[in-house]
């Protein structure tokens, strides 16, 4: 079978797997951003319990394997009465894991906004919440965007692990195809190219675009 015949025969399944991978990436990215902002802010909270909670969360999710976390969420949580459907378990695991990494990016970016900005916001008598939302976070976003580009590529690649709890993503589909055709080079080669294309020609340009938008808001474009 030529590669074109291979694509003709299995193209549909590869395409459907790719769509699942993209959906997983978008959903886990949204979750990761939400968790990262929440945990990053909590890490700087005056309350020790709040800070402690965020620290423990970040330590656990950064310090252990994503695969083990995925298995925990899918196989162990049901023992405690929390059953997640496999697609949900998949993006929740990836989102929670990358969110822990993102939390440190958020914290680092907030801390690197010049002190004078905090002081000017205080001198205008802004409340702590307004200072953060209106003055500090918009500037922190621009600082952390390049690092988020890397993190989102990591996240995309991390979604391949959900094939192991049989979510029908790209990796799952090519494994199945390989199992029936034994055309390993074609199957995994195609997956390799698709992951690369998604990272290089979708995530990276999207992040660049976002950076340009933010720069324009700063009047620097």
């Amino acid at each position, binding site marked *: 079978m030529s590669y074109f015949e291979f694509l003709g025969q299995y193209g549909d399944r590869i395409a459907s797997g790719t769509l699942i991978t993209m959906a997983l990436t978008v959903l886990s990215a949204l979750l990761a951003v939400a968790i990262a902002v929440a945990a990053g802010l909590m890490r700087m909270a005056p309350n020790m319990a709040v800070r402690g909670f965020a620290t423990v969360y970040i330590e656990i999710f950064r310090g252990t394997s994503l695969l083990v976390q995925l298995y925990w969420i899918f196989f162990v949580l049901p023992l405690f009465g929390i059953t997640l459907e496999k697609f949900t378990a998949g993006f929740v695991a990836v989102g929670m894991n990358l969110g822990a990494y993102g939390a440190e990016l958020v914290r680092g970016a907030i801390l690197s906004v010049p002190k004078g900005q905090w002081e000017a916001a205080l*001198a*205008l*008598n*802004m409340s702590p919440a307004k200072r953060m939302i*209106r*003055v500090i976070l918009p*500037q922190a976003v*621009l600082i952390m965007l390049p690092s988020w580009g890397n993190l989102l590529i990591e996240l995309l690649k991390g979604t391949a692990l959900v094939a192991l709890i049989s979510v029908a993503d790209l990796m799952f589909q090519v494994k199945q195809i390989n199992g029936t055709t034994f055309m390993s080079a074609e199957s995994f080669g195609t997956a390799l190219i698709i992951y690369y294309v998604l990272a290089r020609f979708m995530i990276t340009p999207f992040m660049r675009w976002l950076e340009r938008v933010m720069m324009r*808001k700063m*009047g620097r474009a």
Partner: protein
Amino acid sequence: MDTTDVSAFPLRLEGDAIPMVSFKKVTKSYGNLVVLDSLDLDVAEGEMVTVIGPSGSGKTTVLRMLMTLETINGGVIYVDGEPLTHMERDGKLVRADSRHLRKMRSKIGMCFQHFNLFPHMTALENCMEGPVHVLGMSKKEARERSEELLAMVGMAEKRDQHPSRLSGGQQQRVAIARALAMRPKVMLFDEVTSALDPEVIGEVTNVIRRLVAEHNLTMLMVTHQMGFAKDISDRICFFYSGRIEEQGSPEELFGNPQKERTQQFLSAVKEAS
């Protein structure tokens, strides 16, 4: 850490001529380093007081304490007769909580050495930010007030520019307009010309000159521009190692300084300029 018992201080200042700002035995230290040592300083309403002195003498700290950017270790600061750093509870003065600080802070505005404009907002948005998001003004009203102030500082035409497109002098003028938009009773200028190129210092000092001439604002300023200080101040305070070494009218202090350290400082400044 409070090292001074504040029970001896009045709950509020009363009488005929209440100073707009009053430092009463205010002490500030970082560890063992005493930055301000039992400072007593009154500033009357509408008065322009300039603080000069060698670096490390605590002059900037005076302004930062008044803006509540620094806490104090002893004594009480009063603004408009009311305690700033403390508040009344059960007939006694206790440390101010964040609510009291927010109430008192609304009386004070500050301009910084490095302008600290918000880079993601235009000049106009910088000025509107406080009125809209702190005072709860309508956008229309805030815009009118901000445009008026930007016109006053000569920045009306640049109102839609972001700070990155403005020169230092222009940024500082916007920063002055931004602070004034909050209608403070006391304005603090912390070395507002120190980060500027010599040729644009005049555009900022001229704005402050106009403020002094046309408005009855109480102002405290830290500066190295001695000529400027001499021209516009009602009173000059010379700080030396955390204390007011000497104070008086510009004529007295510059023309006939009494203390040796003041003389040394003034002649050193003269040589440098």
